[in-house]
């Protein structure tokens, strides 16, 4: 069995409320239930050798989560998605498992869609204004970092963005920088609150759709 394996899974519905730590615990137990023995670290407090490439924030859905793992013995990788999905909580589905080729650090871009809800405003008008806003030459926001408050210009971290009108809602489809710098999709909404409060939606929720390499090819 190759050292490093990777699987792609989605986290939608009720499962979006699980935290990263909850998910790690859930995965370890699910592997045991499915009969795939994860490799554990040595030592007094052994922990499973698993890592999720881009930890997802609570409340955000995803169709493209990637997790690296190792098994202690040869196993049927083709059967893994179905067997694991059958023993996972509602909303978590494994789509494929394969030998991990590309290192995590090459994951560069992330496509997300945001559902911006405007309870009392017209979707079409808002879509146009949002497109205009995100096309500004610079959008500097203050955000909390590990070292306190910091400033960040979102524009270099947005590769593409479309705003599509719906009824009392706008769907924002954006390709944003996943790493170096990390643009959290919530920053797209925070930018509105800070820079154009009248464009801020009454509610927004995001879904991760796909991850890419620097050159724009799909990352696996």
């Amino acid at each position: 069995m190759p050292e490093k394996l990777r699987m792609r899974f989605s986290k939608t519905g009720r499962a979006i409320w699980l935290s990263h730590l909850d998910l790690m615990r859930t995965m370890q137990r699910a592997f045991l239930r499915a009969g795939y023995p994860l490799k554990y670290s040595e030592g007094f407090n052994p922990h499973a050798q698993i890592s999720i490439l881009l930890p997802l924030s609570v409340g955000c859905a995803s169709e493209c989560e990637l997790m690296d793992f190792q098994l202690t013995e040869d196993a049927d990788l083709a059967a893994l998605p179905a067997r694991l999905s059958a023993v996972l909580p509602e909303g978590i589905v494994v789509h494929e498992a394969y030998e991990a080729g590309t290192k995590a650090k090459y994951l560069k871009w992330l496509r997300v869609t945001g559902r911006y809800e405007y309870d009392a405003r017209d979707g079409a008008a808002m879509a146009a204004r949002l497109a205009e806003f995100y096309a500004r030459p610079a959008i500097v926001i203050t955000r909390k970092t590990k070292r306190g408050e910091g400033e960040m210009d979102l524009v270099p971290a947005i590769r593409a963005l479309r705003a599509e009108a719906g009824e009392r809602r706008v769907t924002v489809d954006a390709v944003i920088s996943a790493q170096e710098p990390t643009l959290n999709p919530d920053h797209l909404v925070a930018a509105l609150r800070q820079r154009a409060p009248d464009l801020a939606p009454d509610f927004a929720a995001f879904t991760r759709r796909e991850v890419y390499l620097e050159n724009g090819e799909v990352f696996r």
Partner: protein
Amino acid sequence: MDRRLERILPRVQKPARYVGGEYNQIIKDKAEVNLRMAFCFPDIYEIGMSNIGMRILYHTINRMPGVWCERVFAPWGDMDAELRAAGIPLYALESGDPVSEFDALGFSIGYEMAYPAVLNMLDLAGIPLRSADRPELVPLVFAGGTSCCNPEPMAPFFDLMVVGEGEEVDCELLELFRAARDAGWEKARFLRAAARIPGVYVPSLYTPEYHEDGTLRALTPRGGAPARVTKRIIEDLDACEYPTAPIVPSTEIVHDRVNVELFRGCIRGCRFCQAGYVYRPVRPRKPETIIRQGVESLQNTGYQEATLLSLSSSDYRPLAQVCDGLLDYCEPRSISLSLPSLRADNFSMEIMSRLQKVRKGGLTFAPEAGTQRLRDAINKNVREEDLLHSCRVAFEGGWNGVKLYFMLGLPTETDEDVLGIAELANRVLHTWREYASNKKRGVRITVSTSCFVPKPHSPFQWEAQVTMEEYQRRVQLLRDNMKAKNVTYNWHDPDTSFIEAALSRGDRRVADVIETVFRTGGALEAWSDYFSFERWMNAFAASGLDPAFYACRERGKDEALPWDVIDMGVTRAHLWHEREQAYRAELSPDCRRQCTGCGALALLPKGGRCDA
């Protein structure tokens, strides 16, 4: 999911506890269900999901054809406020449907401080609090759990209360309820019929009257209700369903592991211990049943930890056999096995060293009292030499921390007994100095005291609780005499114990106090984050009641007690005898050595012996 819910969840702490969807949750097709029950636990998810009684009954009730039982927990304060602000009614986790749409709500109440949370949950569901204000049969609001052994403080809120173990009686009750609902019975007719099911107490069929001094004169039944309601028990635990595919919470709960039940009841008869009396008679599971249930549960959950539950695990004769059987499965898979509720004796230490092969953290012992005289008075049959020997074995084996639990305010306690706690702690420290295998790491000895709460159906049910001032004086006395380095002393505040004492031996009038506490903002009163002593005192005053009347008053031998209407199996004469033994500081034999005729064996029609 409710779109409104989606908007508030990002704002609350730990939203995963409010959404359900966990592995092994039970989902049924609503079209094929004709009775929907909300199993309500009046505390937060992390506590409720750790409760083994709830786990058992959830699966038992869901095995009934046509019945779908879902879970409902109390929200934490932030979620409570968000639900109210958004106008979202309390909902069940599996379906997300409002609780008010359910046919029956069953509350599991294990501790008195949860009472206001019950009312808050009813209110969040939009259901009137009092049974009398719910004229229709549906929804039925009932309760079960240990606190129902004194049903009176919560009596006005419930249509009925179930006494004892629920596996059988809950199903009988729900069948009757379904038939009554389908036949269009009025609520009063159903309640009269329900009162004939053994183990069911229908508060509205009993009328309390009081003497001028405030004590109970009588609790008079009518409408064919029995004079006393006898608790229900499961006679044969091996034949009884036990869930081996329990829900695996997606987020961390308090007891996040596989639980396997060894036996029910306790052979010991510690006189302060309500559980030791109300769970009688002793009924063990067979070791092979326990091993099978443990292995199945581990396979079905993927948990890496299992624990064996009972009131006193080392009293289970085949314990070593069960441990070995489970270790055969656990060890190759790095699954850890833990054993709470061990006695401080040789046998336990041997078992402990078998289980804890890797990590050696702290050990916890509960001597309960500081001197042998007082330990004899409470029938806590642990001798100082046993305790010190256990500590010696532990220190030699590499453990470097011991926690010692005591109660202050036990009946007959003197200052000498209080100071005995400090002396005992010193002797434990001395044992460490003499025998520790590794002194470099130092030692941590923690002494904790709480204020004793006399409980119904225990031999101390007639006792006065010491006043809060007296408890504080004893704490101070202990503080002044607990000077050793390495010994930490923690004491619990007595205000919660005082309120708990007033509630646990309260009568029906106390219901007004509980409602007032809820109406003035009380909900999760079992949590120090929310408990407000002032709110309770104000509520007692507003209801014209004195909490000290319930907590700190010694009852007369022949006084009618509000919980006399409930028969937990042990006779009142036996409890009184045990109380007298306590005042003579005389031990009573454990049930294994000699039956003392408490009366609980009468609950087993085929007879039996109390041994585990």
